[in-house]
């Protein structure tokens, strides 16, 4: 477990570098959303989640559900950095018969809790895992990450009601609020604001944070549940493509991937990661 936000920052940088290399190699993937969620995943996997790569299915593990399954790239690189799958396997991303499919598959990849890729599925499943823990008076928790555009799916709001109804204070929803979806800005497509008020009205305890500030993320995730008897909602303000100037905050990078030249510039911008001289 890392306690120093600077170490988390280095981890996140390493994940970004590996992820971009992997996306370039595959020629496919979702660069923007991977990069917006990287700091959240790095903080969860290296400082918050009670998980064990040696026993990925241990019964009392904290559950992390990536509802925005199109960002399998950041999940796989994080799982590889955390020791769930070999780092070398990242080269097989999207190759024929690879375990690393474009969207995560729990039957193939250790550490994946549920198969996602169709949006609006993660939160209902997370209600189920959180309920299961409650039934058993267990202490493990459920963290689920959704996109913001994803919240346009009605299933999320059905789940939102259920979470408050069942007082699931062992459940933490993190919204990757990067303000962009596939084709355009969320607010131009189907507006979501006032987002925090909506979650409050549905009975959740809400905090809005900088989704790229590791110290803030660490403090936030360490203080869940925000209120006893209520599910916690973290609206993480992020940028799609965070970390690389020409990718950041641009809708067209939703599912564009870096070319060889773009990768070189991106890696230069990200700079050394201090972990692995091979990168």
């Amino acid at each position, binding site marked *: 477990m890392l306690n120093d936000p600077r170490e988390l920052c280095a981890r996140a940088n390493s994940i970004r570098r590996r992820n971009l290399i992997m996306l370039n190699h595959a020629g*496919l993937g979702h660069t923007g959303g991977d990069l917006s969620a990287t700091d959240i995943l790095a903080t969860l996997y290296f400082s918050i989640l009670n998980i064990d790569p040696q026993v990925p299915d241990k019964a009392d593990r904290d559950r992390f559900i990536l509802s925005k399954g199109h960002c399998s790239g950041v999940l796989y690189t994080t799982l590889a950095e955390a020791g769930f799958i070999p780092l070398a396997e990242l080269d097989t991303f999207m*190759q024929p018969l690879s375990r690393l499919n*474009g969207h995560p598959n729990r039957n193939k990849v250790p550490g994946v809790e549920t198969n996602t*890729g169709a949006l609006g599925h993660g939160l209902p499943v997370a209600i189920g895992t959180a309920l299961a823990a409650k039934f058993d008076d267990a202490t493990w928790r459920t963290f689920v990450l959704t996109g913001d*555009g994803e919240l346009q799916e009605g299933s999320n709001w059905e789940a939102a009601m259920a979470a408050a109804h069942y007082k699931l204070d062992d459940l933490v929803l993190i919204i990757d609020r990067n303000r962009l*979806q*596939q084709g*355009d800005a969320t607010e131009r*497509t*189907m507006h979501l604001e006032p987002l925090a008020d909506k979650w409050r009205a549905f009975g959740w305890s809400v905090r809005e944070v900088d989704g790229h500030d590791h110290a803030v993320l660490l403090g936030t995730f360490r203080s869940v549940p925000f209120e006893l008897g209520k599910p916690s909602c973290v609206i993480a303000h992020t940028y799609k493509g965070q970390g690389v100037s020409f990718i950041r905050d641009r809708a067209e990078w939703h599912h564009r991937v870096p070319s060889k030249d773009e990768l070189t510039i991106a890696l230069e911008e990200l700079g050394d990661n201090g972990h692995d001289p091979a990168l």
Partner: protein
Amino acid sequence: MTQLFDCRDAFANALVSLARADRRIVTVVNDSIGSSKITNFGEEFPGRLVNVGIAEQNMVGIAAGLANGGKIPFVCAASCFLTARALEQIKVDVAYSNANVKLCGMSSGLAYGELGPTHHSIEDLAWTRAIANMTVIVPADPIETEQAICAAAHFKGPMFLRISRMPVPIIHATDYHFEIGRAACLREGNDITLIANGTVVIRALQAAMLLAERGVQARVLNLATVRPIDREAIVQAATQTSGIVTLEEHTIFGGLGSAVAEVVVTTHPVPMRILGIQGVFAPTGSAPWLLDYFGLTPIAIRDAALELIEARQPV
């Protein structure tokens, strides 16, 4: 090299021409403007494109309401999410209510390849053709796509169309006339019949050429309308040739092969082979790689046909 086409272009162009002539035509999408290639439609008719965001159930319900209000809505969304997520809206709001909605399942079948089973739409024909009132169409090339979209606009009633993004060659002659419910015979032959639709019709034609090298004359039918099905063409194939091989970019459970078999076993039973995805979630791989992986290569199709013929010879 034969030139290959993305049928979404023919689809989008047809939609724009139709919309110029008929103000009732509107589109309904789920953050899928780019992936449906209807950016031009949106620019020319900004007030007639409804983008509901990522909300397929709402999308189909809204389309039914628009139809009720006298519009002709074309719902343009990735087929996997349109059919799987909004199936009850398709059944109740569109089919049961008999709303004049055209459901255009974009990038159907295995087109999304390495994005995996959440994005594969290999059950959509089974689901939609099981629903009463539905007309189900799978065009095979840009010529047929354009005509099918025109036919859809003029047809009154619920319809599901598969619009693929997988590059396909032109297989129909320029004077081809698409008719709802009518199979097109692309090659005459009386030894065996190959029945296909959509992106794999070209593979049936290629297999027929391989069969001809073995002295077997295969009839090739493009069965673009899966429902209502062309019973007459199927019965003729069953009576005039010694067996039927179907191939589809779909699971073998409930799709084109099943639809053909339902006619064959109740009229003139002959041996069949049903080629397609064998009831499993596909492994990782690109769309063409997966088609080959599931045995939809011209050689495998030829061999299935030869097996069928051999099995019929009395020992």
